């Protein structure tokens, strides 16, 4: 694993996706970070399946079930200020990576540690 149960991390700068679900196998941890002056409004985390939005502020740590529809909401930014905005970091556990981890482990146990062939 990358760290504990986490297999990977995405970092989205002003990331506004369509509401979606992910093929993850456990809860995702999300960190919200503003840079510069941050944002004017929006940029929260919406859950379409329960009709609620978690308000996000600088430094907030969220968790969510990735198998339910989720996504950030549209951002309202300061005009002409490219140095201000919001980043979301998602620490997730992906099914296919977990399987790859098991497969690599079983292969390694079968064939052992392979030496480099030096000519």
């Amino acid at each position, binding site marked *: 694993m990358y760290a504990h149960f986490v297999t*990977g991390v995405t970092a989205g700068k002003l990331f506004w996706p*369509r509401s979606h679900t992910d093929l993850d196998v456990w809860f995702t941890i999300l960190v919200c*970070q503003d840079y510069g002056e941050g944002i004017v409004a929006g940029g929260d985390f919406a859950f379409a399946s329960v009709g609620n939005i978690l308000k996000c502020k600088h430094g907030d740590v969220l968790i969510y079930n990735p198998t339910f529809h*989720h996504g950030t909401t549209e951002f309202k930014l300061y005009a002409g200020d*490219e140095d201000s905005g919001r980043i979301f*970091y998602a620490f997730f556990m992906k099914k296919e990576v977990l399987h790859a981890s098991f497969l690599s482990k079983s*292969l390694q146990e079968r064939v052992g540690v392979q030496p480099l062939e030096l000519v």
Partner: protein
Amino acid sequence: MARITCVIFANTNDDTQTGDKIPTGYDIEFVLGGRLSNLARCDLTYTTATAEGFVDATDNFGGHLLRHQMTASVENMREVVADEPATELEIVVADKSLKKVRCRKSELTSGAVKKHCASKTSNKNESNRTGECSGLRPSGKRSCHPCSELLLKSEFSKTQWKKPRDGQMYCINCHGKIASMGPMGRVLKNSHSLSSGIVDGRQHLVHGNIRWDRAIRSSSSDREIADKLLAEFKTSFDITKATVTSIKKLGKNEESYVRFQLMQNVEDHGPISEGSMTDFLTTVRTQRVHHIPFQHHPEQSGSWPINTFTDSPSMSTGTRLKFRCKVSESQYISSFPEGRIVHHVRGTVLKNNDDMIIGARCYTLNQQVLNEMKLVYDEIEKHRPFLTRGNAVANVCANFAVTGLKQDNNTKLLMTHVPRSKDASDAYQEMQMRSKLRGIFVKNIYPLVQKEFGWLFDPITEWVNRGK
């Protein structure tokens, strides 16, 4: 493919530690599993020969070697987020692109490639056999792989000069330098031969020759074991059925559960209108919108300078944007119902009517950690420039990057996300960034989450650790 790793035998619990030289050891970690010296994985951090001083960083020589190591795999040529396994077509395309590099001025069509880059039957021709494209390079010269110089036959040993065109030639001078590096030099030189292209243990057409990739393939028994373990995991931790009650029954971290109960619960309002479930959602428009189509389609080349992306004026006014997806098809936007934005000082929990946690906001990170994360993010942007996701996750953004582990598209084995930069020295920085982000998560983020959601995450962390 292999990576050099090092272990520091002191202060190993501090990922951000820098300073005086302390005792270190080195290992080589193979992408397909295993380590040469078998040092404990948790102690290792990725490094490069250049960073460790085995190769002179100011010398083009060593960096060049590493750069070629990185591009040896077709994996690096393809977008790492591609969901589909490589097709034969992709393999052929990759091979052609390699040929174009070798016949760089030709801009050849496939027919011309065949003509200039000899098949076995035309190997009798000296210029073809030695990899030259007649008329395109100075006659009688060939390129040395490490120093990239076009050199005369006299600059190469007889053995090197006789190498086939897809072999990497070393001039006498470079050969001497590598020999003087000792074992590290031999690793640098020979690790190229682990794969001439795609790493999957199968047969491939490489520069007109059929070659077996030397990667070790997983067997059906390996896959059975992996499938069984994944099934066991999903039985124990089925996220699609994980209710508060069922997870609490696992009995981990009772203290955190007490804190969790102090958080504010918010009622389930039910799903928003069916047509809007997979739309882009907004709360910042003065006029409510319902399932209106975007004017633009998210094409891979879709990027808009400031104030030009009319589908989101409130974002476009602030920054340049990308609107990307692997498929170019209509996307829609809907306003979220009003009065649904929640925030509570003690934290907020969103549960559905089936007692499942949908989302929650817990503690807030301190500013120092956030400052470090921003620095790490800046490094991510440099080395992982952009990630395009599938249609289900079409998105508008300033940037989107990924790091950590992934499944290799061909072998289905575990591997790391690799830096996309062409500069070998970036690999070291990218690996350090990865290590630091991991350190920030382990030391600062996860402990914070554990306080209120240890009962939710500790069981799974324990299960994963037991498997090690």
